């Protein structure tokens, strides 16, 4: 059952890819018109059809895994992140008919693919639930949060489209640097995924003996060549790369090493682009977007956030409180995860109030959408893996 569900996820991944390709063609391809003036370039329609198929297959994955695991598959990083990607695609499928905007598809589908691919870098095995997590309220909470975040993420896509459309890329300004940084971040994630896949295909393993944060000798295994070695690390595996520098003991050196690889990998891909096109990536994309109406993507991203905010609030705060009351004896305990959900809520509340004044429409609003998405990603990655890890649920 689990294997079958994984196959469905794989199929859906290719569907997302096909959807992306069709949306690309719908925008860059020739505009054929019949004699009656009807649009003959139907790729936008096919793109949408494939997005629907992709969502359907990925939901099949979700259901099959649910049956196989025995609980809603949203309880570890792989499962949750995958579902976030699915939620975003689902939000797209729902919102597309309202705006019929192929550009939205062109940008959403690759982000979904990136998220799902990123998710599969985490251990994918089925894990048993500890007692605190055995609650249907938890699953209701997590599923709703992911749906809300998926819709909010469309606001980000709209904002990004807006920025790529209106910003002047001919001069290197702060705004250009900002947009390029967003694009670079996506490339760094891509680099992370590619590197992970390549090194694990090569079965790269290098074991070090090192002195850990408690001053005790321990061993650690790297799955990528060590640019940064562990504290006082001595390479045990033969024929492996010797690190340039050593990390201090309090830092998880293998994670730092991975981050470093991703940064460098991203820079590499980005550099290749720049060398090929001799202009910022945004500048290269911009001409494709000349038919985008800035007002309408601005409104689109605002609507995505107005629609996503109640869903996120319901899942991230209200259902979370109900679960916390049952599992942790109190509905609110200022745990870092709770606080970051509150912060996200406050951020989008501030956004909605800023939108009340016209001065915050358009570009400023688009930047806020980008920051909001950065917050969601921060919640997903940093809060889950770093902050919460310090004092993760002990029971």
């Amino acid at each position, binding site marked *: 059952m689990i294997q079958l569900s994984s196959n469905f996820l794989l199929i859906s991944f290719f569907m997302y890819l096909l959807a992306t390709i069709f949306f690309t063609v719908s925008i860059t391809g020739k505009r054929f018109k019949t004699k009656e003036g009807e649009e003959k370039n139907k790729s936008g329609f096919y793109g949408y059809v494939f997005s629907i198929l992709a969502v359907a297959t990925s939901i099949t994955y979700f259901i099959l895994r649910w049956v196989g695991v025995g609980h809603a598959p949203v309880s570890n990083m792989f499962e949750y992140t995958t579902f976030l990607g699915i939620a975003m695609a689902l939000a797209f499928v729902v919102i597309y008919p309202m705006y019929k905007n192929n550009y939205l598809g062109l940008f959403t589908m690759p982000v979904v693919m990136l998220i799902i691919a990123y998710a599969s870098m985490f251990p994918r095995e089925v894990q048993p639930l500890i007692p605190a997590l055995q609650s249907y309220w938890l699953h209701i909470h997590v599923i709703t949060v992911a749906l809300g975040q998926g819709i909010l993420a469309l606001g980000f896509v709209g904002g990004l489209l807006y920025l790529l459309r209106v910003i002047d890329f001919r001069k290197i300004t702060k705004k250009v640097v900002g947009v390029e940084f967003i694009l670079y971040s996506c490339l760094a994630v891509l680099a992370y995924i590619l590197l992970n896949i390549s090194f694990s295909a090569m079965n790269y393993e290098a074991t070090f003996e090192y002195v850990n944060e408690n001053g005790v000798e321990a061993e650690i295994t790297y799955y990528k060549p060590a640019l940064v070695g562990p504290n006082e690390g001595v390479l045990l595996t033969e024929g492996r790369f010797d690190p340039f520098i050593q990390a201090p003991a309090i830092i998880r050196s293998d994670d730092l090493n991975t981050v470093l690889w991703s940064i460098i990998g991203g820079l590499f891909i980005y550099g290749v682009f720049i060398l090929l096109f001799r202009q910022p990536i945004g500048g290269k994309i911009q001409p494709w977007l000349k038919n985008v109406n800035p007002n309408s993507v601005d409104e689109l991203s605002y609507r995505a956030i107005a629609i996503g905010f109640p869903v996120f609030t319901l899942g991230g705060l209200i259902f979370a409180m109900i679960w916390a009351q049952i599992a942790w004896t109190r509905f609110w305990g200022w*745990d870092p995860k709770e606080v970051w959900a509150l912060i996200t809520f406050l951020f989008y509340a501030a956004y909605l109030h800023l939108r009340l004044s016209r001065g915050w429409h358009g570009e400023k609003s688009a930047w806020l959408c980008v920051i909001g998405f950065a917050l969601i990603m921060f919640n997903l990655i940093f809060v889950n893996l770093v902050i919460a890890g310090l004092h993760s649920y002990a029971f």
Partner: protein
Amino acid sequence: MEKVKCECGHVNPFGTYLCESCGKPLIEEDTPVANMRYEGVARRSQTYNRTIVDKIWNFFSSVKVGIWIIVLLLIASAIGTIFPQEMYIPPGERPTLFYEQEYGTLGKLYYQLGFHNLYSSWWYMLLIAALGISLVICSLDRVVPLYRALKTQKVTRHKAFLERQRLFGISEDTIDADKEIKIAEKMLKEKKYTIRKEKGNILAEKGRFSRWGPYVNHIGLIIFLIGAMLRFFPEMYLDEHIWVREGEEVVIKGTNGEYFLRNDQFIVELYDTDDERFRQAFERTGQQVVKTYQTSATLLRRTNTGAVGVGTELEEVKQYDIRVNDPLTFDSFALYQVDYKLNELAEFTFTLDAVNDTTTEDLSDVVFTVNLYDPEYVYEFDNGYRIEIMEYFPNFYIDNNNQPDTRNMIPDNPRIIFEVFTPDMDPDSDSGELSLIGVQVNEPLIGENDYRIRMIDVDMKHVTALTVRKDRTIPIISIGGVIFMIGLIQGSYWHHRRIWIQNRDGKIWIAGHANKNWHALKRDIDFVASKAAIPIPKDQLDEEQNSEGEEGGNNSDSTKQ
């Protein structure tokens, strides 16, 4: 201050921008599109600024201030997650030392600034209070005039009002306007608009109730905040812990001695490591995973509510398996599984040996059991032997003055000093041999002993820890939360749209306004235009943008928030 009379005859409150009735601009603005937020009504905060009350009112009714409060709360909350709050540092750690030891100078600073208890600091509370006040004032400032304006609005709006709507158009040629308007009316009805008519002009309106969404959600928030505040009043909130050993009955704190709980059994259940589904996970982490923590408990209630002591009887109320995520609830209380201790020492059983075989007496009857929670102090035997406990330290340690002492009454490290009296001794006047006994400890206290007390059995019990919770604020908080969600949905998933269609000298004038989701409004108008010969209004914002060559440009009404 005097009221303002519009040419249509309606008398508006002082400070009105757009006549409440016909919409004619009463205060000129030099922008092509009118500021329609709150319908151009006179708001107290925009009108008066004389007394101190006015100033406070104006301060808190400003959205700008509201946003600042939200942003400050956001930043403060984020700071609180940099290092763990005091309640999350490992138990037993002293915060004075912990932050510096663990996080260095920054940690020390964090502690000194009081950020280790940030969420209960006076200034964080003050920010939340400011949010509450701001919510009340800003809502009152707007909702009353907005309500009046939406109620008084009339169908035939002033020419200048129509011209300055974002969506506005006039038909090119003169046609049979009345007929087309009739068709348009039918189409709009099909789209579920409410239509009002006056002299052949129409006002089509849809989703007005969504305008109250923000106010409803703000009310919900206020109720929520009030609920959260009530926590600090007595009797509203209870947070107690009880430890219950297996087989033991303890009074449930906070129930005034009315309820007791018996721990019938405590278990920790692990996942079966042979479970095929989880095999991979077990292999990777090499760890066992807990499946269940469960206390099988019996809830008891005192039957006579009179004095404690004699005649008190406990009646069984119910039996329940308390688990994580499955508390036992009764009255307004809930008991949660939160912690446990396995194998706590409960009883020692001893016997007595003669060290040098000097006695021929039979000591096999000298067997006694010491209850470590509440020991008997004297043990007498048929053969005349007598053993007394001289001192008992449940949790033994050597204090600062080098004296033996106990940390608490929990038998984590019990030590007992026994005194042994042989049959020929008088316990009142003689003193017996002393020995100190504990886990893996058995030594004579003074010199050599003739008798040795030997431990022959140990009995251990599991102990469960439960949180006793009563939270009377929950109903209020839930009501606040529900109202908040209703308002949020009401304001987010419905939109207020209005379309004015007028016949002015045989030409059709059309104007449209939506409080948000202009896209849907435009589609509605397109739908109408597919049958009726009405002009498709232009989006004056798009025009503005094209003429200026860049987005926005219109900051004129941003200051009025």
